[in-house]
């Protein structure tokens, strides 16, 4: 059964889109990630124009992050104050990101830039994840205790001015690195159509030393608002949010996530991370190949003024 996507302007098989949404939802439930960094490349592989894939991906992340954020809010593992500071950076970053996005689109380098960013980020994050989880599995096999963290190490981040006390997170931290982190993730959200949790969570834990229990909930809180903002601004400037595509992905995604969570609870942490690392690397590799292989046609046509 085919369905016409009004903004992407092409007919697609609804079952493929449903399957894509359900599969990514399943994985996002299993690994506790938003799934935007998988949805957008998959849509591009399925010939959805990257402009539409990115904007629609951001819209889909709103739905997939909301139920997680609600759960964390109920459990009290969401620091609203910390989230708001992140959000200040996130919204300004997203605004700059949209501006870069439109500029790249105008000069015809958007598709290339999106692919390159994905190759770099997926390659780095996937590689690190795989390395770390393989090391953890080796240690477990040899019955060694996990490598101890360097205690009492005075991080440069903690010497910055403008310190604020975040009661829920039980930390006293400068707002500068928090805003900066939110800002960089915001740029990525609008250019790549991702929530950015896969970068934000490790950065909050290892760079800002925020307690692990509030990290996921707080990052989800900021992701919801930044992706919602990005969706609206993308719709207003690039007219590229496909609501039909987004809705199919959302519905399949939230259902898939429920089953993913159940499977994820039965698997061990390092196995889970190794699997996710492999998957992320595979998607990155597929995009890298597409950049290098000789295209079918070296010419392309864009109708309409302005770009």
């Amino acid at each position: 059964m085919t369905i016409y996507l009004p903004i992407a302007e092409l007919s697609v098989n609804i079952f493929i889109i449903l399957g894509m949404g359900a599969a990514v939802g399943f994985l996002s439930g299993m690994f506790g990630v938003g799934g935007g960094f998988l949805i957008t490349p998959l849509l591009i592989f399925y010939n959805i124009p990257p402009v539409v894939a990115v904007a629609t991906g951001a819209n889909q992340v709103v739905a997939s992050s909301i139920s997680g954020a609600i759960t964390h809010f109920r459990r009290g593992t969401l620091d609203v104050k910390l989230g708001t500071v992140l959000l200040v950076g996130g919204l300004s970053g997203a605004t700059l990101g949209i501006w870069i996005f439109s500029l790249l689109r105008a000069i015809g380098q958007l598709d290339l830039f999106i692919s390159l960013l994905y190759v770099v980020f997926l390659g780095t994050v996937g590689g690190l994840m795989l390395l770390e989880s393989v090391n953890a599995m080796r240690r477990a096999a040899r019955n060694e205790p996990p490598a101890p963290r360097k205690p009492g190490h005075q991080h440069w981040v903690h010497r910055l001015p403008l310190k604020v006390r975040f009661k829920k997170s039980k930390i006293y931290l400068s707002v500068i690195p928090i805003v900066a982190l939110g800002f960089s993730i915001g740029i990525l959200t609008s250019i790549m159509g991702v929530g950015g949790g896969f970068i934000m969570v490790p950065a909050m834990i290892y760079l800002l030393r925020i307690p692990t229990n509030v990290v996921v909930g707080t990052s989800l809180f900021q992701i919801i608002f930044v992706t919602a903002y990005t969706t609206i601004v993308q719709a207003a400037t690039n007219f590229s949010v496909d609501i039909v595509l987004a809705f199919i992905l959302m519905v399949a995604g939230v259902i898939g996530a429920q089953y993913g969570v159940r499977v994820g609870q039965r698997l061990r942490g390092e196995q889970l991370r190794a699997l996710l690392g492999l998957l992320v690397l595979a998607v990155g590799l597929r995009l890298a190949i597409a950049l290098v292989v000789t295209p079918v046609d070296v010419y392309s046509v864009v109708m309409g003024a302005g770009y």
Partner: protein
Amino acid sequence: MRLLASLVVFLCLLPAAAGAQWLPGQATEAVREGLEIGTSTSEIAITSDFHGADLTIFGALSNTDQLLLAIGQYDVVVVLEGPREDATVRRKERVFGIWVNTRSMTFETVPHSYSMSSSRMIDDVTTPLELTDQGIGIDHIPLTPVGFVGDGSNLGEFRQAFRRLQQLGGLYERDPSGVRFVSSNLFKASLRLPANIPNGVHTVRAYLFKSGIFVTEKSLPLRVIKTGIEQMITDAAHEQPILYGCFSVLLAVITGWGASLIFRKD
């Protein structure tokens, strides 16, 4: 059939014509031929399950030379021209192993779609010069680059690529047998509307040629309006973009929240 009939007529008239030293085309110098066309509708509503269609156009010739008509010296070319827009063609090149869009060229106000029907192959109807003058045919649509194009050495390849890609995408089409004479003065033309036909005011143009020389043309506007839920969404996305964006977010919030309510473990 028509060809055979015209051949018979031509052979019958040949001795008489030769005897009277009368040359075809002479008698029509005084009266110019007329051309009238009509479509069944001036507006086409396209539903969401549209997969392309044929549009029929009827036309009549007047003040024709019966002899020339009989031997098939009149040719009709009918074109459905889409709304005009600027078109940008980009070319990829390998830079450090990666394929990058390096050069581009923008052509001024070219038709978004172009569907042409004729009574025979367009190149047999008249000379390339005449086609270029009138801008008739996929290969003769004027493609004027915007701005500075350097020495213009690659103008040809960009023009060629544009025409090729538009044909590949089904937006530019030609049918050399789409125009048929139903009687001596009446013709019927069928034009292909591609599945991805753009919205807006299209123009139906008919051109009349006599012995390879352009005589006259007629044009009619044709509004193409897409209908259905998909079109409503497209219109909303372009006319009320902020509201549309807010609605997309609202839909996501409801879906996400709804899922957390439905699957809540109590």
